[in-house]
């Protein structure tokens, strides 16, 4: 029996991308944004997709059929408001370019691209950012580095993911975490239940899946810049699907009187991945199904960050992977 022997392998691969391990292991930088691979992996622009009628195919229960593999097109979670600018203390190559040559802030409202924090919340975010590269306290470690669920909205810019649909449900299967979006119109859980991914209740309006997310615990953070919501936040997500079936924008409005001076909105673009795309280990982490004589079909391997349990920043940052955690 050797229960922890295997934790690191795929985890190490992930952390090589994650770069959050850079605090402990500078050699494990993500491919620097601006290397020759940059242009193929990320786009600097955000498409405009209007809410409206859905003209595409539907599932037997009437839902627009948006099932499949998806991934964001802008950047990972290194920097929330300057997505291609690099993590705090780890400037990307693009960081030297004029700002308009990098992807815009994920904050689409207010127009200045900044989260409208109240002063105390802004101070907390800035304290995290200034300590990110050399964390001296547990709270300065980006929780995704410990395999925590990526949460709302970070899950949508952390590796590719799958959307599956069922009567009454939209299921989001992320690299780090799973969300069950219920379409049955029932109320949220009791408000004192706080969850990493919140409690999601959704409905379709034409080409737009509208999801109210309550019961947030605020713990996942939005990325390496330490942007965040408090446990009093609610989020309305509008997943606006292009009738081309290949793109959608997540337009999410955050309301939180504890942390923000006013509601604000993030826009996160995504595109579909299919068998026409090559698996790339980040957006599209699939393997070919073993189906001799059948057309190429990709499938998702076991989602390792949840399922290898041992948080991959664990050894370095003091997560007790050996001690008992629960009594049930």
């Amino acid at each position: 029996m050797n229960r922890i022997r295997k934790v690191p392998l795929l985890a190490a691969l992930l952390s090589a991308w994650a770069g959050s391990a850079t605090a402990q292991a500078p050699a494990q930088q993500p491919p620097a944004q601006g290397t020759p691979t940059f242009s193929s992996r990320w786009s600097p622009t955000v498409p405009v997709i209007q809410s409206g009628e859905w003209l595409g195919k539907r599932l037997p229960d009437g839902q627009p059929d948006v099932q499949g593999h998806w991934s964001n097109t802008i950047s990972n979670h290194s920097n929330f408001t300057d997505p291609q600018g690099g993590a705090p203390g780890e400037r990307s190559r693009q960081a030297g370019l004029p700002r308009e040559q990098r992807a815009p802030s994920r904050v689409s409202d207010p127009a200045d691209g900044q989260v409208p924090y109240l002063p105390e919340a802004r101070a907390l975010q800035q304290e995290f950012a200034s300590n990110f590269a050399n964390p001296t306290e547990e709270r300065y470690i980006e929780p995704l580095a410990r395999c925590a669920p990526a949460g709302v909205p970070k899950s949508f810019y952390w590796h590719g993911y799958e959307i599956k649909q069922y009567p009454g449900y939209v299921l989001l299967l992320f690299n780090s975490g799973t969300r069950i979006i219920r379409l049955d119109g029932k109320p949220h859980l009791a408000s004192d239940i706080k969850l990493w991914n919140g409690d999601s209740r959704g409905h379709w309006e034409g080409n737009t899946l509208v999801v109210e997310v309550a019961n947030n615990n605020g713990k996942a953070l939005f990325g390496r810049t330490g942007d965040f919501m408090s446990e009093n936040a609610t989020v309305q997500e509008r997943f606006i699907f292009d009738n081309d079936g290949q793109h959608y924008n997540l337009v999410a409005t955050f309301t939180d009187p504890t942390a923000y001076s006013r509601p604000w909105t993030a826009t996160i673009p995504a595109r579909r991945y299919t068998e026409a795309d090559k698996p790339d280990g980040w957006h599209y982490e699939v393997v070919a199904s073993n189906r001799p004589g059948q057309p190429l079909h990709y499938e998702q391997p076991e989602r390792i960050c949840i399922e290898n349990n041992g948080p991959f920043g664990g050894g370095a940052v003091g997560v007790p992977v050996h001690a008992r955690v629960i009594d049930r």
Partner: protein
Amino acid sequence: MRGPFSILRGTALAVALAIPLSGALAQAQTTPGTIPRQADGKPDFSGVWQTLSEADYDLEPHAGRRDAPPSAGVVDGSALPYRPEALAQKKANFDKRGEDDPRLKCWTLGVPRSVYYPAPFQIFQHPEELTLVHQLGHQVRTIFTDGSLHPEHLEEGYWLGDSRGHWEGDTLVVDVNHFNGETWFDRAGAYHGEALHVVEKWAFVDANTVSYSATVEDPDVYTRPWTVSVLLNRRRDPGFELIEDYCFTLPYEPHYPHKDVTP
């Protein structure tokens, strides 16, 4: 074989033999059309399921003890057929179960344990695959039913194995392999290695009850295959739904968001 279980083996044999029999009778009583079905006519296991059995406490027959309610056992035969050296490891596991059981870290439970661990899991079913979301740790398993075969090669074993299912009448038969050796079968230290191979059978007894069995084969640990059988009950409590339970985050979650705390 020596150990705390040997006294019980006589009784256990009779009881254990009775379990598959009653399961078979129950299945025989199922009439077509009374169970949920997909559009293609196959049984539809969509919903939230949970065992009432004591399987997770100890698969083998045992009297009640501090950390386990009594059970007549849920495996065929009597005690699990350990190889001699494996039995020593099992006993060592049992002695340290309060610390060494992977479940205590909220780690992914493996197969078949994730099915009979006493917490709910939800099945989302398409004709091509079933997605199982387990409340504990929100671990996710995909059972492919699209005719695909196991991968010929995996660099790392999976915590939940690689699951390929097919239908034999109204029974879903799932072949699971490519495991790692990190998980246990119960709280009493029953374990396996990387050679584990599991064949599951899922079949409705009635619309709200599923007969589940898993035949376990691991020649490195056991002298013969053995089978665990439990019933799974649909969670019908009014308004019941799965609630995320990422309990593996408990050691560090107090520090977030931006909390200066000493847990």
